[in-house]
C-alpha cells in the first residue's frame, strides 16, 4: 500500500514536472532579432494603424487624437471569461514605458511578458508572430512618442481552468503557428504579398473573422469564413469570396470600404469593425488595395457560422 502511494506520488510529481517543462515561456532567440535596427517612429505609425492597437487599448469610443492614448480598459466578455485590455501607454509604471525593445518584441511575437508570464491570446500575438521584427521595433519607437496615461486597467476576470496562465504554454504549443495561411509562390505580385502580410500579420483579421475550435484555436480550414462574434453579439462576416461572403465586391469596393466605411450598396460599417475601419483609413491607399487584393485571392468558403444567426 505504501509502495502504491509512493508510485502515485511519483507519477504526480513527474506529471507536474512535465507540465512545468512543456508550459514554460518560449522567448525569441537572439539570432532571430540580431538584424533588427533602431526603431523608426515614422514608419512605426503605419504599423500602429495596421496593427489596430487603438481598437482595444484606447478608451472605448475614443476618437481623433484620443485614439493615441493607450490607457486600456476595454472589456472583452467572451465564453472564457472577461478580458480587460491593459495600459500600454508610455507611462513608466502603469504602462510599458520602462520596457526594453526586446521585451516588446517578445510580447508581440511570442506572447511572453517581461517577467516571463504568458499573455492570453485575446492579445493577438498569434498573428503578430508573423510580423517582421523590424516593423515591431518601429512600432515600439512610435509608441514611445505617445502620451503617458496614468492608471492601471483592471484584472482579467476568468474562471478555472482559464485562470491558470501557465496552461497557456500548452495552448501555444497547439495554436501558435507563425506560418502563412495562404501559400503563395515567391514570385507572386508584390501587392498580393504585402496584402498577405497585412491581413495575416499586423492586421490580425483572422482573429475575429475565422471560427475557432473548442479549445479556442483558429480553424485554418475555415480561414476568414466569418464567425459568431466572440462577445456573442451578432456575427463577424465571411470575408472570403465564398457563399455569404464578399465575392461580389471588386478590389476597389473593398479598398473603398476600408477607407470610407461604406459597403458597395452603401450600408455602413458597424459594431467593433467601426474602430478597425478608422485604423484602416489611416493607411496609404496602396496598403488598402493590397489588403483587398489578398481578400480576392483567398480561398472561397461558405459562412463559418450557423445560418440562423
Amino acid at each position, binding site marked *: 500500500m505504501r509502495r502504491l502511494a509512493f508510485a502515485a506520488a511519483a507519477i504526480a510529481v513527474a506529471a507536474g514536472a512535465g507540465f512545468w517543462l512543456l508550459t514554460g515561456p518560449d522567448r525569441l532567440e537572439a539570432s532571430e532579432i540580431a538584424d533588427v535596427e533602431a526603431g523608426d517612429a515614422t514608419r512605426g505609425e503605419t504599423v500602429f494603424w495596421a496593427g489596430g492597437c487603438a481598437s482595444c487599448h484606447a478608451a472605448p469610443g475614443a476618437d481623433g487624437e484620443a485614439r493615441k492614448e493607450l490607457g486600456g480598459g476595454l472589456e472583452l466578455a467572451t465564453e472564457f471569461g472577461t478580458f480587460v485590455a491593459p495600459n500600454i501607454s508610455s507611462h513608466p509604471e502603469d504602462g510599458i514605458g520602462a520596457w526594453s525593445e526586446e521585451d516588446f518584441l517578445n510580447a508581440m511575437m511570442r506572447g511572453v511578458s517581461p517577467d516571463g508570464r504568458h499573455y492570453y491570446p485575446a492579445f493577438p500575438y498569434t498573428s503578430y508572430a508573423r510580423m517582421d521584427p523590424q516593423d515591431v521595433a518601429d512600432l515600439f519607437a512610435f509608441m514611445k512618442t505617445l502620451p503617458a496615461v496614468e492608471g492601471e486597467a483592471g484584472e482579467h476576470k476568468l474562471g478555472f481552468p482559464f485562470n491558470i496562465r501557465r496552461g497557456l504554454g500548452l495552448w501555444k504549443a497547439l495554436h501558435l503557428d507563425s506560418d502563412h495561411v495562404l501559400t503563395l509562390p515567391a514570385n507572386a505580385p508584390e501587392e498580393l504579398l504585402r496584402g498577405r502580410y497585412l491581413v495575416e500579420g499586423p492586421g490580425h483579421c483572422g482573429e475575429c473573422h475565422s471560427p475557432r475550435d473548442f479549445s479556442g484555436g483558429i480553424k485554418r480550414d475555415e480561414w476568414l469564413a466569418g464567425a459568431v462574434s466572440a462577445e456573442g453579439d451578432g456575427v463577424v462576416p465571411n470575408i472570403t469570396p465564398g457563399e455569404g461572403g464578399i465575392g461580389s465586391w471588386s478590389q476597389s469596393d473593398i479598398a473603398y470600404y476600408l477607407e470610407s466605411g461604406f459597403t458597395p450598396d*452603401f450600408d455602413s460599417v458597424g459594431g467593433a469593425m467601426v474602430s478597425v475601419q478608422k485604423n484602416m483609413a489611416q493607411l496609404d491607399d496602396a496598403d488598402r488595395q493590397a489588403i483587398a487584393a489578398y481578400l480576392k485571392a483567398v480561398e472561397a468558403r461558405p459562412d463559418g457560422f450557423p445560418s440562423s444567426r
Partner: protein
Amino acid sequence: MRTLILSIFAVSLSATAVTAADDPVAARKLLMQSAAAAAGISGGMMKGDIDYNPAIAKSAIATLNAVSHTYGDYFPEGSSEGETTASPKIWEDGEGWQAALEKFQADTSAAAEASGKDGPADLAAFQQAVGPVLGNCKSCHENFRVQKN
C-alpha cells in the same frame, strides 16, 4: 370626383399609417434603405462615379434629413424581436440612443440649410455639407446595431 380622390387619398394614407404602426421593424427598414440610397448617390458623386448635380445633391440631403427626423419613432419597446439587427442597447441606453438621434438630426438640418434653394453649388460645398451627416451612419451602427458588417 374631388371627394372620391380625397377619400382614396385618405384611405391610402391611413393604410400606410396602419402598416407603420403595426410593423415598426418594416417601417424603419424602409427608412434606412432610403438613407442608404441617398448615401449611395452622395458617395457616387464624391467618388466621381456620378457627375455632380446640385438638384440631385439637394434631393439626397433632403432624404437624409427626412429620415433623421422620423426614424427614431419606429423603435417602440418590444420591437427588438424578429428580423431586425437593432441592438438591445437602443432600449438599455435610451439616453445614448436619443443623443445619437439628435446628432444625426442636427447634422442633416445643417446640411439642408447649407444646400439652399438650388442645392450646394459645387462638389466641394456638397462634401462639406454632407460629410458630417454620413459620419453618423457608422457612429450609430457602432453602438446600436448588432454586428454584421
